[in-house]
């Protein structure tokens, strides 16, 4: 009887989640499955997509230097953006957390506010700032700091700056969450034991918010590696990343199978990097934080 009750209790949750599951399958899994199948088809410039199956697309990406550069650039950029976001976002969250209330809410809103604006709009804003005649260059030249305009638009520096701006709120939120679990008395305990403010920060606070920094890094890394709008607008035609390359294959070359293969490879690479990173971290923090 107990079993029957237990089973009876289990069924409603499944039933209740069915509509969401169905939607999820229809809208996410189906297109992904179709992309996956498409990536094995071949493509002919004159006849289009042919319904045969081979690994040719994958081999092409894996063997071609052109794609290597794009993949390396993408993940290199993701790494740099993640590092900068961690270096900016963690102290930002810490300072925000220590502010008194009217300011705290105000600054938090300022940090998270950009999330409310479309990426495209924000990126176009950056494009205006970065341009040869843009505000940044006019200021720099006006101040006499540089003689000729600094090249920011269509460079990786420009893309990285804009991506950091887009993604730093995710780091702040993630570190913020782990700061809420930090007992402020541990900082006082450190001080009372003779540690300087800086030592307390380094040995007591940072290790405790590290899980937040690391999970924030995961989010930022994954979002950068698959970012599309920012590199497309600020990187231009030549500074390609994986996502923009897949897009070009789809829309310019019309080689959908190759684009699909690139997209799948990006997904697989992302999943591998993130899960192995996660595994390492879990091992490191399992003991102290459970």
């Amino acid at each position, binding site marked *: 009887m107990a079993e029957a009750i237990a089973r009876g209790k289990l069924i409603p949750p499944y039933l209740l989640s069915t509509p969401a599951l169905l939607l999820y399958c229809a809208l996410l899994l189906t297109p992904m499955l179709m992309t996956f199948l498409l990536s094995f088809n071949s493509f002919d410039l004159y006849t289009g997509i042919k319904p045969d199956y081979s690994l040719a697309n994958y081999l092409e990406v894996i063997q071609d230097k052109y794609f290597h550069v794009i993949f390396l650039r993408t993940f290199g950029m993701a790494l740099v953006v993640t590092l900068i976001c961690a270096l900016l976002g963690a102290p930002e969250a810490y300072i925000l957390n220590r502010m008194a209330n009217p300011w705290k809410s105000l600054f938090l809103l300022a940090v998270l506010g950009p999330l409310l604006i479309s990426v495209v709009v924000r990126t176009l804003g950056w494009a205006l700032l970065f341009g040869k005649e843009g505000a940044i260059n006019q200021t720099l030249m006006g101040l006499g700091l540089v003689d000729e305009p600094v090249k920011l638009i269509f460079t990786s520096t420009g893309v990285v700056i804009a991506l950091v701006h887009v993604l730093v709120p995710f780091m702040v939120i993630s570190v913020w969450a782990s700061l809420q679990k930090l*007992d402020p*008395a*541990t900082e*006082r*305990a*450190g*001080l*009372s*034991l*003779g*540690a*300087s*403010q800086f*030592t307390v920060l380094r*040995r*007591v606070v940072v*290790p*405790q918010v*590290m899980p937040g920094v690391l999970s924030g890094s995961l989010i930022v890394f994954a979002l950068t590696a698959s970012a599309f709008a920012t590199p497309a607008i600020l990187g231009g035609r030549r500074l390609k990343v994986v996502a923009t390359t897949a897009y070009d294959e789809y829309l310019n070359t019309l080689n959908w199978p190759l684009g699909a293969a690139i997209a799948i490879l990006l997904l697989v690479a992302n999943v591998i990097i993130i899960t192995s990173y996660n595994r390492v971290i879990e091992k490191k923090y399992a*003991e*102290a*934080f*459970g």
Partner: protein
Amino acid sequence: MSFLRLQGLVKRFGDFVAVDDVSLEVEKGEFVSLLGPSGCGKTTTLQMIAGFEEPSEGRIYIDGKDITGVKASQRGIGIVFQSYALFPHMSVFQNVSFGLEMRKVAEAERKARVMETLDLVHLGDFAHRFPRELSGGQQQRVALARALVIKPEVLLLDEPLSALDAKIREDMQIELRGIQRTVGTTTILVTHDQSEALSMSDRVAVMNEGRLVQVDMPYQAYEFPETPFVSSFLGKSNKFSGVVSGQSNGKLKVKVGELEFEAEAGRGPCEGPVHLSVRPEKLLLTAPAEGRFTGRVHTRIFLGNHWVYQIDSPFGPLLASHHNAGIQSVAEGEEVGLTWAVEELRVLAPEAGDG
């Protein structure tokens, strides 16, 4: 000269006075409890001694040195926080070792001192555990070891036992007192538990609304409270309001309603309206004719080693509590006489706003 001296400490938060003119002298090696109801300013006082709150007025001296402006990290005071505040990412050993690392103690000596202190709190075998793998009582002892290992001149304990359940708490009280005696550190314990304060300390300092009301040895404070607040905060008491009507041979006559009681003129006031107080264990039950007045037993509660009676009397409900001496006790509803030995009646100044 006293070792730790608080001189006219005041702490204001805006208009609110959290600590109001607190002066206290603590001898070297002494164990003083700071006792008072929630929000009376105990933690704030402790934080000022520790250096985490700046006094609005007043000075703090340790061993004759004025430390009022010294940074918390330079004071060399050991603190056990109410939440323990163990470093969750460090093992027990690393937690205890932290203070010694900050003092640049060489590794060999550091190891020896950490293990010695862990043995003192009976946690020698737990050095490699992490805080979350310990019970509340064990965490509390790690916090104590972490504070003691630096051999602080003063040890501050902020309700260190309040998170523990009753049984462990009693064990820890005895253990904490034992450790404090062994180490001989000057200690201030903050608590709102009167039995904890009475059982552990050399002296109790009773606080109310930011002020120190009475500082005395536990027995003295309990037996000779100076105000009705102390009398009711340290244990229970039966209170009557009356007016002094006369005085002879060191005895006061106090009129309470229709009756007149004698009391010894002690520390309290000698004239005008007063408060009389009798502890429940000093309120004796007799045959109806033999008492100072009579009452009726309303409820009778058996608590194993003693009985507690709630008695309806002309002066309102009274409490009496007596040892279970194996004799059949009076039954509920029975009429009893109520009396006390003259020297057990305390005369106190009435408190503002309370009868």
